[in-house]
């Protein structure tokens, strides 16, 4: 309320970048050099980045306490070369005095960053991973960068940023049974597409946001990058989104109630259709996990559908919990047992096959539906395999049927049992994604 009526307000992106650049304001389109509040690297790039600093003769990091390293991708190491890469990284992590180092088994980097509270609302955060936008779920301006830029940020504490234009997305109402945050972001892929949000900051707001848990918001912010977004922010603490007089280049309003389960079909995330359009497509593998949908809420929803049943013959279901906390909570709730009894292979916390490194790659001609975020050709092994993306509920229903299935059409959802998609629960962090 400290802005005079009619005066221009900054968008979240403009406000956070201005603050980090030590200025009163910044406006979309300009370049600023800003101080970075937190940085994260995972095992794929940590050794490269730190070796680059070592080669250049950099003796110390600008501020090692701002840095987090998580080993989650090639874990446990599937090859001698991956093991050597990680050994080199460990050596340099200790050499450069990085204390916040999470070893294999702790979980997927983005989940760990939130669980360990390594990011705080209002911060400017960079990491060597495109799904860094996930922290937007907590009002953080967070985005992915490459190894060289990370080396520069580690050495100097700063980096150049283009202040992005912003797009507002106002959510209204509540999800219907069987429809989840994943379906919303897939729907936005279809409705907005990557051209409009490219380089832009997406700011989510509206009454529907209150219906979303932190886990839901993470799913949505995570896939913001698939639309091309630089940041994907929800309100949190003092960070308010959808400011009346801010200059949004586009605005969208989505009624959550009107959404139906969505599926991205090969070979691009933008190829989104209503699940009914591809229902019946036979599957060889179903994957539940990743930083998009490997949280307790996701496993709970999947287990709710799989409970007391068995997956289809000829299909394999692989599940990778997003973190050790998720795994513990899932074990406590009996979810792991339900999954095991249903015939699932449950792996340890980590990325699993999501990026096509190991742990569940596809053979030529095979078809997989996963809860992850990318279905590019070759993403999960053979370039001649097909990847479909959907929600944990769609994944579970499809695993039972052996073919893509609309979870709303599973009888027990409409048979008087508590509706799974609408269960309001605490998240794996024991809190709701409060505004």
């Amino acid at each position, binding site marked *: 309320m400290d802005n005079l009526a009619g005066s221009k307000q900054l968008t979240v992106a403009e406000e956070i970048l201005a603050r980090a650049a030590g200025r009163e304001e910044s406006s979309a389109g300009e370049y600023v050099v800003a101080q970075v509040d937190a940085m994260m690297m995972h095992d794929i790039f940590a050794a490269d980045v730190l070796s680059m600093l070592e080669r250049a003769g950099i003796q110390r990091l600008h501020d090692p306490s701002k840095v987090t390293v998580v080993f989650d991708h090639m874990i446990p190491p599937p090859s001698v070369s991956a093991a050597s890469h990680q050994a080199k990284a460990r050596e340099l992590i200790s050499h450069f005095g990085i204390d916040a180092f999470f070893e294999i088994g702790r979980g997927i980097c983005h989940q760990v960053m939130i669980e360990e509270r390594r990011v705080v609302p209002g911060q400017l955060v960079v990491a060597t991973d495109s799904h860094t936008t996930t922290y937007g779920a907590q009002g953080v301006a967070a985005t992915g960068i*490459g190894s060289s830029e990370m080396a520069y940020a580690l050495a100097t504490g700063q980096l150049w940023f283009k202040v992005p234009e912003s797009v507002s997305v106002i959510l209204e109402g509540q999800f219907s049974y069987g429809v989840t945050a994943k379906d919303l972001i897939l729907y936005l892929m279809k409705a907005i597409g*990557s051209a409009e949000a490219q380089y832009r900051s997406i700011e989510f707001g509206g009454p529907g946001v209150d219906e979303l848990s932190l886990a839901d918001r993470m799913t949505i912010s995570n896939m913001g990058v698939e639309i091309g977004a630089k940041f994907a922010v929800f309100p949190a603490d003092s960070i308010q989104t959808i400011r009346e007089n801010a200059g949004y280049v586009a605005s969208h309003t989505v009624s959550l109630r009107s959404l139906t389960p969505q599926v991205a079909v090969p070979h691009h995330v933008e190829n989104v259709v209503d699940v009914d359009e591809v229902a019946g497509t036979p599957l060889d593998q179903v994957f539940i996990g990743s930083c998009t949908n490997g949280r307790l809420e996701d496993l709970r929803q999947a287990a709710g559908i799989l409970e007391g049943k068995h997956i289809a013959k000829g299909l394999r279901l692989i599940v990778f919990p997003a973190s050790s906390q998720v795994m513990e909570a899932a074990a406590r709730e009996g979810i792991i047992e339900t999954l095991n009894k249903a015939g699932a292979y449950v792996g340890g916390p980590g990325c699993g096959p999501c990026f096509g490194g190991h742990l569940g790659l596809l053979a030529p001609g095979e078809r997989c539906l996963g809860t992850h975020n990318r279905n590019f050709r070759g993403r999960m092994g053979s370039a001649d395999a097909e990847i479909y993306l959907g929600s944990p509920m769609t994944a579970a229903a499809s695993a039972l049927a052996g073919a893509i299935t609309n979870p709303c059409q599973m009888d027990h959802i409409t048979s008087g049992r508590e509706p799974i998609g609408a269960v309001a629960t605490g998240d794996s962090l024991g809190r709701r994604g409060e505004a």
Partner: protein
Amino acid sequence: MAGLPAIRGRAWLFGSGISTDMLSPGQYVHHPMEERLKHVLESARPEFAGGVKPGDIVVAGANFGCGSSRESAPQHLKDLGVVAVVADSLARIFSRNAIAIGLVAIACPSISEVVKDGDTVEIDVVSGMVSVGERGIVLEGDRIPEPMLDVLRHGGIEPLLASIAAEQNR
């Protein structure tokens, strides 16, 4: 500061949505470099990795380099001898990474509609002008902002870090 000379090279034409998974497939990330380079863009144009020559230019449609933040995506192109990427539009992280490793990357709307495979393409890096002289095509690409031109003048971030280290250690 030294200027940036104009670039002239043979075009390899690609469509839209070329992803980092196509540029640098995930299953080869820990393979020896020689092996990794053989698979660059193989799912889009299998003849590319074997046929590309030093000095060649990649011309593509929209959203080139979409996908992950892996810097190996532009690095592989550079290692194969590619000197520039000009696309209708570039994915954000890819364009930053390209500059960071010293590879020219320019967004030039509708370039992929006018350039033919094998054309000799000329790029003025500072002004962003892209032309095909023999066919009288001149298009205005997006200018690379000054802080990033400076990185290109240094040849990428790594050489820039060496001068930062020299400061630190003085």
